[in-house]
Each structure stands twice: as C-alpha cells, then as structure tokens.
C-alpha cells in the first residue's frame, strides 16, 4: 500500500509547499509513489491518520500548538520542512524585540489588544513536538525535498549534508564573497542549497541554519583575515535565527 502523506502549514509564506508544486512533471511521478491524503492548498479532502506529515511554518499561538500536537499524535513520521518550521526563520526576528506587546503595537497600533491578534514568541516545530526529519532552506531546495521523500518511501535515512555552504561554493569555483568585500555566513551554514546565493553574487544569509558542530575557529580566522569583528556579522545571524553561539 502506498504511504499516506499529508501537508500542513502554520505561520509562513507557503513558499515551501509551492516548491512541491514547482516540481512540475516530477509531481506526477511522486503521486504514483505516495497517496497524498491532505494538502489544503492543493486538494479537498482529509484523513484520520498519516504515515508521513510534512509541516511548514512556525508556531506562534496556543491554538496552533494544539493543532500541531494533534497532527503529531496522528502521524507515524513527522518532517519539519522550510526555515520557518526548521529554525523559526524570519518569524523569529520578532522575538528580538523582547516584548511582544511592543511588536503588536507596531503593527496593529490601537487595535493591538483585540483578542484574535494574540501571539507569543515564535517557536520552531521541534520546539513543540518531536520531529523525525528536517528539510532546510528558505525556500527548500526542490531536489533535496524529492531526495527526502524517496528515502522515506524506500525506508532509508535521507542523506542531508553535514558540512558548510563553503564546501559547495568552493567546488563551484566561486570567488569568495569576503574577497568581494561582503560578509557571508557560508562558513557556518549547513550546505545542501548548492551555494545558490553566493553563486548569484549574494552573501549567504544562513537560511538553512547552522551546520552541526560549526567550526567557530575557522569563522574567527575568516573574520580576522578580512579585519572584521563579530559585531560586523552579528546582525546577519539574526535573519534566520542562526544560533548566536556560533558567532561567539
């Protein structure tokens, strides 16, 4: 029997589920492998339980936390996909304000106290429920998503890179963003995007989160070489909620 697969989203732009639609002809192949039973943006239908649930978006309200726990309880495997789910992504920038009431006031002004606008500091999916696998990126990389789905269908463990973006960037022969006068998070960010930003002349912003066991010394050497301080790059770490410990 084909595995029953479902897609859900919380606070996000839904750009990662669009990458699934953007697989184009490959989706037609994918629906031969799996049975998509719930996917609000694409189809009408629901199911009581799922073999694999894909969760997109961050958790910002008690009712969303309850909905996520319910989905988890009905899912054999749960995948947190896209930066908003996997790290909290740009949604965590609001946490830096330290005071949620001020955040609400900035956006809703005199209406900020309306009960339906309640929100709390953003949480990534794994900060609420157990996550079995992650697909990183803002947005996710289509080929990596396909790789994860195939691995799950065939019962193997998806092979996700454990090395930094710099490795991919160097293999492509790109000129280093630091040599161009930029400040790039490639040395500490998890690879898997094929260094897409530096390849387009834009510094890595760290959307895929920190690589496991980042080499802090190497990062400091890079900063020293280009006469930069930790403060020069600190703000960039806050774009996609990269662990600030990495920069210390």
């Amino acid at each position, binding site marked *: 029997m084909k595995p029953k697969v479902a897609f859900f989203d919380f606070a996000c732009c839904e750009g990662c589920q669009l990458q699934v639609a953007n697989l184009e002809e490959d989706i037609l192949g994918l629906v031969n492998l799996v049975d998509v039973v719930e996917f609000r943006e694409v189809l009408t239908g629901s199911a009581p339980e799922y073999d694999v649930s894909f969760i997109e978006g961050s958790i910002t309200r008690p009712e969303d936390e309850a909905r996520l726990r319910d989905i988890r309880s009905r899912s054999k495997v749960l995948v947190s996909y896209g930066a908003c789910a996997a790290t909290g992504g740009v949604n965590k920038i609001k946490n830096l304000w330290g005071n949620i009431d001020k955040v609400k006031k*900035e956006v809703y002004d005199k209406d900020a106290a309306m009960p339906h606008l309640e929100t709390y500091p953003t949480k990534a999916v794994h900060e609420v429920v157990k996550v079995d696998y992650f697909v990183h990126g803002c947005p996710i990389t289509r080929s990596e998503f396909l790789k994860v789905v195939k691995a799950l269908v065939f019962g193997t463990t998806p092979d996700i890179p454990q090395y930094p973006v710099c490795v991919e960037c160097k293999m492509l022969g790109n000129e280093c963003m630091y040599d161009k006068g930029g400040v790039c998070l490639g040395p500490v960010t998890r690879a898997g995007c094929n260094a897409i930003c530096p390849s387009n002349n834009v510094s890595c912003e760290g959307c895929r989160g920190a690589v496991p066991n980042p080499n802090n010394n190497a990062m400091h050497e890079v900063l020293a070489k280009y006469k930069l301080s930790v403060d020069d790059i600190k703000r960039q770490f806050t774009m996609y909620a990269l662990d600030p410990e990495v920069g210390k």
Partner: protein
Amino acid sequence: MSSNAIHIDVHHVTRVEGHGNILVDIDNGEVKTVRWSVPEAPRFFEAMVVGRDCTEVQPITSRICGICSIGHTFSSLKATESAFGITISEQTRRLRKILNHGENLQSHILHVGYLALPDLLKVGSVIPLATTHKDAVLLVVKLHRLANETCDIVGGRTTHPIRTCIGGFTKVPTEKELAGLLARFESAIPDLKTLAAVVKSVAGGLPDFVRETEYVSLTDPAEYALYDGIIKSTDVEGAIPVDQYLRVTNEYMNSQSTAKWAKFNRESYMAGALARFNNNHTQLPPLAKAVAADLGLAAPCCNPYFNTVAQVVECVHSVEKTIEHLQWLIDKGVKNEPVSFKPREGRGVGAVEVPRGILFHDYTYDKNGKCVKANCIIPTNQNHANIQLDMDKLVPQFKDRGKDELQLMLEMLVRAYDPCISCSTH
C-alpha cells in the same frame, strides 16, 4: 433539517493560499449569518524590518509571500529606491518586467489549472485530472515550468529571487539564456490558445452572479500596467499618485479577521486581474484582446467568478510582453551594471501589480539607511471586504439551490479571488 434551513461551516477553505473559513446560517428561509473569516496567524513583518539595514529589508519582506515574492521584492525595492532617490537603467527595468510577467504567469497558471479547473470539472484536485485530462494537465505543467524557469534564469530563483537588489541586479542572464527563453515563449503562444480553448469549454460552469463594485488598480499611459503606474479607481476621475495610497486603502481591523480590511469610496473594492482588465483593457496587446473576446470577457465585467477568465487573458498578455522585452534585451545586449547608492533619510512608497492585485510597500529610513517604519498593504487585504459583500448578496440570491450547491458556489467565489491569505495577514 427542513429544506429552508441551511448550515454551512467550511473550516479552512481548500485550494486557496492560507486559512479562511465560511459560515452561513439560514433558518426558516431567513438568512441569519453570512461570514468570511480569516484565522491566519499574523507574522508581524512591519515590526521585523524596523531597525534593519536597507539591504536586508527586501530579503525579509520578500518572505511575506511564497507565491508573489517577486512582486513583494519590487514593491520593496521601488519604495527604497524612491526614498533614496535612485533611478534604474532601462536594462534593469526590462529584466524586472520579465520577472513581474514570469511571476504573474506562474501564479495565474497555478490558479487556473491547479486550483480553479478542478471545480469546473467536478473533482477535488488536479490529481485525478492527470488521468482523465492528461493533455490539459501536461499543458498546464509545461506553461508553469516555463514561467518558473524564466524567473530562475533572470532572478536566480523563482521563489524569493536572489539577484534583485536596490538599484539593479547582482548578476544578469547571458544572451544565450535569453535567446533560449525567447524561443520557448514564441512556442508558448499555441499552448496558450489551447489552454484558452479548454477554459472556454468549461466556462459555462462559472456561476451567473453579478455585483457591481469599485475596481482599483495601477494604470500607466504607456501600457497595460503591471510594474509601473499610478492608481486608478472606477469611482474616481483621474489618477491618484502612488504616494497618496493611504487615501485609497483606508485599512481597518475587524474582529472576524486577523488580516486588515480596506475600503475606498464604498464599503469595499476589488483588486486583481478583473480590476486591471476593467480599468485598462483597451491597452491589452492584440492576442490577449482576441482571447478576451473569445472567452466572452468584456469590460466592465462585474461577475467576480470571471477573475479566473481575466487571469487567462493576462497570461496571454504576459507572454506577448515577455517576448517584446526579451527581444529588446537581445538586440541591445545585456551587460553587468555595477550598482552603488548612498542611503538618505526619508520615506518612499512603491507599488506594483502582482497576480492578486495592487501591492504597496512604504518605508521610512534614517540617515544611515536603517528602516524606522514600514507599512505593507497586500492585494488580498483589499479584497477581503469585497468577498464578504459578494457573499452577502450571493447567499439570499442562491439559497434555494440547496446546501451543497450553495457551499460550492461560496468556495468557488473565494477561489475566484485567488486569495493569498497568509500574505494578507503577514
């Protein structure tokens, strides 16, 4: 339940972007409740960008929307460029217009083919159509792929473009890549004609419902407005400068929605493909005009379900205009244009037509180029009140059709607006 009592409670309408609910109560033939509500989680983008450097503002606000990230990118860059007094080159303008068309084509094809067509063919999704209407589905996929690959080639990535920056592009496509695209766009013309014929064959299934409303879009003396323009409303003589957008949008909170609502001269107005068509149809290029006539779309059209038909017409428009821009770039040759700018204190407003309608970004910067205030007004914000008022008229008019048909009509109405609900909540 007697036949004149109907209860409709659609929790999370399917085949739309984001979370929206429909509630209808009819008791003893009397309509008690008709409610379009949005429970989407707000993300607080206007607070996120406060304190950020000008170069980080567009990468952040692009993330408001996965489907129209290119439109957000350009509204954002135009607002910042206006604040800093930056003018862009003709090459940059043409490349941006290609991306703007690529996104509209991608989004419209997705809506028409994947989200709306299943209703007209009486199925729950595009998946069964891959077996029953294989040729039509493959055609939709082919056009969708072309639109996405155009944005990959020109913008570096289709969702959250990478190469677009304040003042220009960090990298430009090669002439070989542009020539390859041109050939594909030329061969897309017959594909679009086939798609229009498929839509025509099922368009009789669109409900016959009319409600006259105010239509707001950009307008541009030079062409059918998307990237450039000033504000036009069917209720106002003459155009309104973009920096006076607050006169038009008048956003307000409402307890049934976490997204703000908007109104101008009436209780609601409509933005999107149908508004653009009603305001600017005389400027459509020849083939788009012919397709509109063939599909029975004539201005002023006040049937909101025909927004989907207007999107088909705009797909043709986008292909015709993209060919023109590609040809121009190939003739002139593309070159790397280094960009440099100096931030200055001030405020700037940017407006662009995106798939679902007119989009505004408004930023204030300090002298170091740090953002101190932001406001983003999304097309779907501007459509929420209009959806509610359409429902208010539609339910009494069609309540005798019974629950199932009424519910389908209401869901189809929401889908016709192709709402970007999470984007409107941002």
